C-alpha cells in the first residue's frame, strides 16, 4: 500500500504536466469542432476505383467504364490479386470492379452476367458501389424495351443525364467521424506526454541510486516493491486514458457511445498501454531526471509530427510516412483515420484496424522484452 501511496504522492507533484496536456487537448478539441466545413478536405468524395475488364470490345462495357470514369478516379495497378489486395489495404483504391468476358454480348442476349466487386467498405467505396448499382438498375430497366445495343446505350445515357443527379446519401456522418478521428489523433500527443513524462519522472525518483539502495536494504522484497510500482504505473496510465475518454465524451458526444466509438476507445487504450511500455523502457535506460524531460519531449512531439497527430496524414510526404511505420503512433493514427470513413463495421472492414492493433501489441511486447533484457544487464554490471 505504501508503494502505491507514495507513487501517487510523487505523481501529484507533476499534476501541472497532466493539466497542461489535458488543456491542450481540450483546446484542440474545441477548435476542431468549430472548423466543421473543412471536412471535405479529408473525405474525398471521388472514389478511387480499379477496373479489370475482360470484355474489351463490348460497347455496353465501354459505356459503363466511361460513366464510372466521369465520377471517380480510375487507378492503374498490377492485375494480380496480391497487389490488388495490398492496394485495397493501403487505401490506394477503394473499389475494384471485375467485368467478365462477353459481358455486353450476354446482356444483349438477355442473361444477367454478374459483375464482381471488391471493396474497402469505407465511405468512398460505398459511393462507388451506389454508382455502379444505379447504372445497372437503369440498364436493366431499359434492356426490357431496347433490343439494339446502340439504342440501349443512348437511352441509358439520356436517363443518367436527365434524372436529377441523385445525391448519394451515406449513412455515415463524416463530420462527426472526422472530428472524432482528429480528436483521437491529437490525443496521441497528450497520451504520450502524460504517460511517458510522468511515469519516467516518478520511476527515476524510485530508481535513483541511493534511494534504490535504501529500498534494497529494507525488509521489503525489492522485486515485489517493483511489481507494485509497475501496477501503480499501469493504474495511473489507465486513469489518464479514462480522463481523455471522458473529455472526448464531452466534446464528441453521442459518437463515442456507438460501436465505432468503442473501437476508438479501445484503440486509444492499446496506444496508452504501448506508451506505458515505452515509458518503462526509457526509465530503465535513463535515470537522470533532467535528461528524461528532454528525451520525452523529443519522442512525444517527434512521433506526433511524423505520424500525423496534428495534421492529416494525407498531407505528409510519403517518405515521412514510411519512416513513421517504425513508430507505434503511426498504427494508432492509421486506425483512427480508417474509422473516419468505414461505412459498415463488419469483419472485413475491421480487418486493417485489427492488424494495426496487433502491431501496437507487438510493439508493446517488444518494449517489455527489451526492458527486461536491459534491466537484467544493468543489474549485472551494477
Amino acid at each position, binding site marked *: 500500500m*505504501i508503494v502505491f501511496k*507514495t507513487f501517487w*504522492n510523487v505523481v501529484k507533484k507533476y499534476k501541472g504536466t497532466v493539466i497542461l496536456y489535458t488543456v491542450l487537448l481540450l483546446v484542440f478539441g474545441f477548435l476542431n469542432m468549430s472548423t466543421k466545413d473543412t471536412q471535405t478536405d479529408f473525405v474525398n468524395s471521388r472514389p478511387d476505383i480499379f477496373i479489370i475488364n475482360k470484355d474489351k470490345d463490348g460497347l455496353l462495357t465501354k459505356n459503363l467504364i466511361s460513366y464510372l470514369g466521369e465520377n471517380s478516379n480510375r487507378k492503374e495497378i498490377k492485375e494480380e490479386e496480391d497487389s490488388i489486395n495490398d492496394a485495397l489495404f493501403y487505401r490506394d483504391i477503394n473499389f475494384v470492379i471485375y467485368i467478365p468476358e462477353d459481358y455486353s454480348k450476354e446482356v444483349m442476349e438477355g442473361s444477367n452476367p454478374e459483375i464482381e466487386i471488391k471493396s474497402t467498405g469505407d465511405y468512398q467505396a460505398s459511393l462507388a458501389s451506389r454508382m455502379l448499382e444505379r447504372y445497372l438498375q437503369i440498364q436493366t430497366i431499359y434492356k426490357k424495351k431496347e433490343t439494339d445495343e446502340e439504342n440501349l446505350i443512348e437511352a441509358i445515357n439520356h436517363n443518367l443525364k436527365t434524372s436529377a443527379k441523385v445525391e448519394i446519401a451515406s449513412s455515415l456522418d463524416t463530420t462527426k467521424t472526422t472530428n472524432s478521428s482528429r480528436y483521437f489523433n491529437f490525443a496521441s500527443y497528450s497520451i504520450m506526454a502524460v504517460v511517458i513524462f510522468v511515469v519516467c519522472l516518478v520511476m527515476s525518483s524510485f530508481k535513483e541510486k541511493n534511494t534504490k539502495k535504501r529500498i534494497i536494504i529494507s525488509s521489503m522484497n525489492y522485486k515485489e516493491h517493483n511489481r507494485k510500482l509497475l501496477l501503480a504505473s499501469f493504474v495511473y496510465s489507465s486513469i489518464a486514458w479514462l480522463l481523455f475518454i471522458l473529455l472526448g465524451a464531452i466534446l464528441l458526444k453521442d459518437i463515442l457511445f456507438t460501436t465505432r466509438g468503442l473501437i476508438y476507445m479501445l484503440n486509444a487504450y492499446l496506444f496508452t498501454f504501448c506508451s506505458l511500455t515505452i515509458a518503462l523502457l526509457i526509465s530503465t535506460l535513463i535515470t537522470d531526471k533532467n535528461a528524461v524531460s528532454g528525451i520525452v519531449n523529443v519522442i512525444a512531439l517527434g512521433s506526433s509530427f511524423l505520424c500525423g497527430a496534428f495534421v492529416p496524414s494525407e498531407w505528409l510526404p510519403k517518405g515521412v510516412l514510411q519512416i513513421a511505420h517504425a513508430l507505434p503512433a503511426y498504427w494508432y493514427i492509421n486506425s483512427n483515420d480508417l474509422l473516419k470513413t468505414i461505412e459498415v463495421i463488419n469483419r472485413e472492414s475491421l480487418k486493417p484496424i485489427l492488424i494495426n492493433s496487433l502491431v501496437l501489441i507487438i510493439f508493446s511486447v517488444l518494449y517489455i522484452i527489451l526492458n527486461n533484457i536491459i534491466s537484467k544487464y544493468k543489474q549485472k554490471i551494477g
Partner: protein
Amino acid sequence: MKNIVEVKNVTKEYKELKAVDDLSFVVKEGEILGLLGPNGSGKTTTINCILSLLNINKGTIKIFGKIMKPDAYDIKKDIGVVFQEVAVFEELTVYDNLDYFCGLYIKNKKQRKEYIEEAIALVGLENYKKFYPKQLSGGLLRRLNIACGIAHKPKLIFLDEPTVAVDPQSRNNILEGIKTLRDRGATIIYTTHYMEEVELLCDRIIILDKGKVLAEGSADELKELANMDEKITVEVDHIKETVIEKIKYFKNVHEVSLERNTLIVTYKKGKNNLSELIDLLKENKVTYSKIFSERPTLNDVFLNLTGKELRD
C-alpha cells in the same frame, strides 16, 4: 554481551584494488562502534559488504548470529542505514518521505505514525514536516536523511559519515540523537574521518587504513599507541640550540622538534611537564607568544602507526 555483527576475514576486491582486505571485527550489543579512517580507506565498502549490497570475494558476515544474505529479510527488518549521500524524494514532504521509508518496514499505519513523530522529534524537524527537501538547509536535509534511516526503530544502525559538511548546530543535534538511540538500546556502527567525533561518541574505535584494521580499542587504549602522553607546543620568538639540548635532557621528554618558530616537545609520561618547561624557558630568557599543552589525539595515533595524517 552478545555479538551483534561478526565480520570474519572479509575481502572485497575491485579489479586490482583491495578495498577491504581480510577484515575481521565484531560489534557488541548496545555499543557505538566507530570506524575511523581517511578518505578511501574502505569504510563505505565495509558497510556495503556487511549489508550484502556488495558481493564479497572472501569471508563470512553474521548479523544477530545469522548469516547475512541479500534475501535475509528477518535480519533486514531490524537494521537501519543512513548512507553517506542523502537519499530522499524531492517530490515528497519531510513527513511523506519518512512515511514511505518507514512504511517499507512498518505496515501498521497507527504505529508508523507514532514512529515517524518520534523520529522527527529526535532530529528536531518538528517545524519542517510540510517542507520539501529543496527548502531545507544542508544540515536539516542531513537530519531528514538520518530520520529516514532510523524511523522504524531498528536494533542495529549504520551511519556513514552523517555529519560531513554539516553546520555545528546540526552536528550537535545529530550527535545527541545518536547517543539517544544508543541509550534506547540500539547498537550503532558509525563511520567518520572526524576523530573528535569518535572520541566524543564511540565506546570502541576501529582505525581503518587501506581496507585493513590498524588498531582497535577505546579512545584511551588507542592513545597509548601514540607513543606519547603529552605534547607541548611553544611559539618562540627565538631560541638557541643549547636551550633545545637542555630540554632534551629532561627525563620524560620523548622528542623535541623546532620548525620555524614552533617548538614541539612530546613526553612519554609524567607530571608537571609544562611548569618545568616554562621555568626553563624563563631561566634562559626565551620569550614566547604562546604555549599550550595537549593530550595526544587519534590523529597522533594514526600518524605514529602510518606516518601520515588522518586528514589530508
